[in-house]
């Protein structure tokens, strides 16, 4: 084992498995036997009824954990044994705390999967083994615990081992071992058990001490740019941590996504001038040209480049309390870049028990699926298998800012590299010039019966009279044609709005002033449309009419039918309307006439320079 002693890198170990399999007890026992529990801490572990030491109290550091006797969140413990340094991430076994378990798994090198010898592999074993596999941990130790409770019976251990071998093969663990242990009594933890002479393999500690820290990247030089360091002397350094490969002064690099090639003039690693640097080092690079580079870009080796694109396939572990809905707009963080993202399709959901693929339209909390993603701007990435630092991603909910998913990139969608935006001879500006005004989108949102269509129609009539080229889109006209295939479930309503946004965008390209009239009850969807457009083109108009007034008006008799329960998912009655908080224009219909509302909108367009009110109609642009 001497060859491992020189390896001073810390091995990070994940412990996982079902509730009450004894994860915390196992780690507590290991630390205790290694003399790694200070006396004053040890004193705190024996204050329960029995005299015996309760090792689990060492790790269950939160008050609710000690009260309920369960592990809620991952605990990190640091110890030194057999000349190695270790970090143990002790994770919770309860299904509802998967997001805490995956937090521990994402940074671990090796996983200890515990099972209770009396129960064998359970559904939670399968789930955790699957997550371990997704996170790219290839080295797994199955600890068959509580072997004392089955009289140290070899057959029990062999049966569980046989079952686990099948699972390990299915999940492509490259390296796996099975050990019979008793965490409570200490058998095969750090000392060999005298009660299981049939077991000839290593103890748990021997196994850990002999494990190497795996490399998590196979790609050439990659460095996501964190920030630009500007010194007083006018110098400009590109700061970041090297994700893979190495770099030396004089080497050529390519900056992505721009594709600009430059070379390295100076390198400093953790503030020290060096000639070369490699993976994991935090460096500042001085480049030989003054090229445009910013946070979110990636510096890479020109001969071994990562993918650049906005469409790819990823495996997603959904952690959010709210269900994942395709089409909805979220934020994605990968490397050092944060961009808008939408999950366009769920290819399949994975049954964690059988690994079978199932058709799915949504992912609920803790479900795992393979999905197509599209980002609002190009990403620079590798597949997770090639480079974990370049292929891992998180998804963030725009409204709550919670991290709602972990994802790993499987591969780019080839479409993203083959379909390029067409080269245009006639530009958007050229089309607008011909019309004599600039394009804009008025997006009217509000409850059914709020007066959106009335105001949109009257505004279009006024604009038309002024010589402004317009088009009016609403739910009825789209649902009669392009959206014929959509119903009224939440997922379909999101798609309805997405298509309305895309159609509007084409109309804007054509140079028109577009009026859209959609209930569009969800803030996230309105934001998705907003982000499709240029910032100065999108004008959100909140037609604010109290619900009581809308019910009273009820022009189509829909509210009555919704209240009677005849229509389901009706906004304001059985589905929420999220009021806009940052609308550019709010029209309170109780305070304005229709003409007054039209005046407001026309004035807003003029204020933005879409056209000029003082000049000749239709010639305002000149």
């Amino acid at each position: 084992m001497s060859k491992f002693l020189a390896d001073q890198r810390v091995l990070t170990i994940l412990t996982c498995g079902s509730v009450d399999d004894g994860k915390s007890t196992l780690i507590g026992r290991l630390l205790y036997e290694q003399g790694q529990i200070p006396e004053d801490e040890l004193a705190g572990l024996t204050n329960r009824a029995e005299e015996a030491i309760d090792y689990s109290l060492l790790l269950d550091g939160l008050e609710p954990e000690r009260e309920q006797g369960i592990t809620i969140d991952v605990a990190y413990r640091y110890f030194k044994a057999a000349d190695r340094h270790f970090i143990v991430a002790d994770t919770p076994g309860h299904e509802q705390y998967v997001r805490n378990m995956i937090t521990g798994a994402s940074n671990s090198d090796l996983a200890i999967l515990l099972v209770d010898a009396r129960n064998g592999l359970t559904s939670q074993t399968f789930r955790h083994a699957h997550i371990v596999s997704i996170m790219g941990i290839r080295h797994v130790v199955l600890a068959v615990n509580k072997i004392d409770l089955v009289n140290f019976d070899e057959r029990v251990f062999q049966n569980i081992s046989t079952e686990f071998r099948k699972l390990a093969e299915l999940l492509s663990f490259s390296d796996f071992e099975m050990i019979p242990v008793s965490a409570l009594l200490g058998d095969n933890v750090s000392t060999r058990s005298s009660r299981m002479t049939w077991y000839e393999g290593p103890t748990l500690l021997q196994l850990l001490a002999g494990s190497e820290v795996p490399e998590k990247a196979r790609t050439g030089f990659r460095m996501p740019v964190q920030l630009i360091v500007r010194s007083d002397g006018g110098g400009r350094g590109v700061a970041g941590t090297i994700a893979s490969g190495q770099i030396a002064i004089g080497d050529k690099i390519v900056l992505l996504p721009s594709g600009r090639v430059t070379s390295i003039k100076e390198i400093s690693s953790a503030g020290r001038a060096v000639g070369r640097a490699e993976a994991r080092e935090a460096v500042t690079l001085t480049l030989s040209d003054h090229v445009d580079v910013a946070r979110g870009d990636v510096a890479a080796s020109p001969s071994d480049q990562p993918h650049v694109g906005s469409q790819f396939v990823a495996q997603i572990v959904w952690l959010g309390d709210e269900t994942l809905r395709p089409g909805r707009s979220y934020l994605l963080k990968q490397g050092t870049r944060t961009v808008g993202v939408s999950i366009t399709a769920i290819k399949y959901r994975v049954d964690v028990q059988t690994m079978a693929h199932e058709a799915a339209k949504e992912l609920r909390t803790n479900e795992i699926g393979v999905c197509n993603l599209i980002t609002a701007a190009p990403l620079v990435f590798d597949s997770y298998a090639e480079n974990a630092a370049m292929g891992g991603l998180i998804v963030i909910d725009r409204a709550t800012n919670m991290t709602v998913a972990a994802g790993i990139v499987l591969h780019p969608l080839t479409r993203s590299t083959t379909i390029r935006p067409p080269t245009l001879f006639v530009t958007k500006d050229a089309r607008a010039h011909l019309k004599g005004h600039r394009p804009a989108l008025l997006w009217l949102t509000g409850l059914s019966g709020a007066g959106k269509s009335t105001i949109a129609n009257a505004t279009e009539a006024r604009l038309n009279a002024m010589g402004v080229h317009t088009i009016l889109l609403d739910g009825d006209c789209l649902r009669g044609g392009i959206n014929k295939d959509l119903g009224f479930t939440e997922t379909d309503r999101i798609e309805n709005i997405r298509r309305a946004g895309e159609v509007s965008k084409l109309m804007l390209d054509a140079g028109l002033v577009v009026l859209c009239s959609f209930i569009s009850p969800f803030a996230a969807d309105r934001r998705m449309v907003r982000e499709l457009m240029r910032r100065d083109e999108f004008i959100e108009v909140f037609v604010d009419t109290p619900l009581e007034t809308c019910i009273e008006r009820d022009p189509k008799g829909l509210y009555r039918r919704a209240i009677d329960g005849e229509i389901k998912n009706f906004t304001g009655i059985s589905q929420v309307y999220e009021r806009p908080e940052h609308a550019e224009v709010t029209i309170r219909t109780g305070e304005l006439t229709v003409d007054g509302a039209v005046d407001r909108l026309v004035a807003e367009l003029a204020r933005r320079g879409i056209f000029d009110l003082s000049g000749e109609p239709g010639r305002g642009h000149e």
Partner: protein
Amino acid sequence: MAMNSRLRDLEAEAIFIIRETVAEFRNPVMLYSIGKDSSVLLSLAVKAFAPAKLPFRLLHIDTGWKFREMIEFRDRTARDMGLDLVVYVNQDGLKRNISPVSSGSSVHTQVMKTEALRQALDEHGFDAALGGARRDEEKSRAKERIFSHRSSGHLWDPRNQRPELWRLFNARLNPGESMRVFPLSNWTELDVWEYIRAENIPIVSLYFSALRPVVERDGRLIMVDDDRLPLLAGEQPQMEWVRFRTLGCYPLTAAVRSNAKTIDEVIEETGSAAVSERQGRLIDKDDASSMEKKKREGYF
């Protein structure tokens, strides 16, 4: 002394975290408590942005009861390094004469540290605070994320922490919320010492053994740093060879008997210590979940 790959990895990880904080937040600040961890954090921050100046201010929450030597060290460090240091004192607590002697350790800590920190962060509009806390210090810290989210009012909800995947830190905040960031999360006490030795980082000499005037109370050695510490009947300060493993308010920080006068001796002693680092912190002992409670209320 050359650094091994373990220290180099820890150093690079901390620099990455500090840079992410600066890149992602509007107005970050670094908490500076004058202790050894703060000294290491400061040294890492300088490396992260060299040759440019530190892109944030430093904040020291002064309770008025720190060791005199700490304050001298703080002012000297700020002057020599040209730091933009804010020293904040809870004026309201000062007016109410809150002290560890008359008010007790828990009221003193609540008013002069926890409340003072919240006031200082609010007053300056800091949206992220970098601190030198480590997970190996204490059980509830062992559970905390590197980017630790605080709701408005600076409250920590340990039951509902954000997932933290890989090194992809979610730094997004809603109005009124803030973040505490711990670049030294994965360092141990021994790592800190070995790094101080390898990089020759200046620290307060209270960490090294010297003859100091102490009184023994309930088995704890309290240094008589000035005449504000009332002596009990029969108490007489004795000169003893002592040093400190952690530094806080002097009446609340116990010394340990030690002959470790050099960093090599300190490292040797730390490696073979039978008790934990925070054992000398009286404020941790109020009850079993003491640190967690204080953290939930906004303590660092």
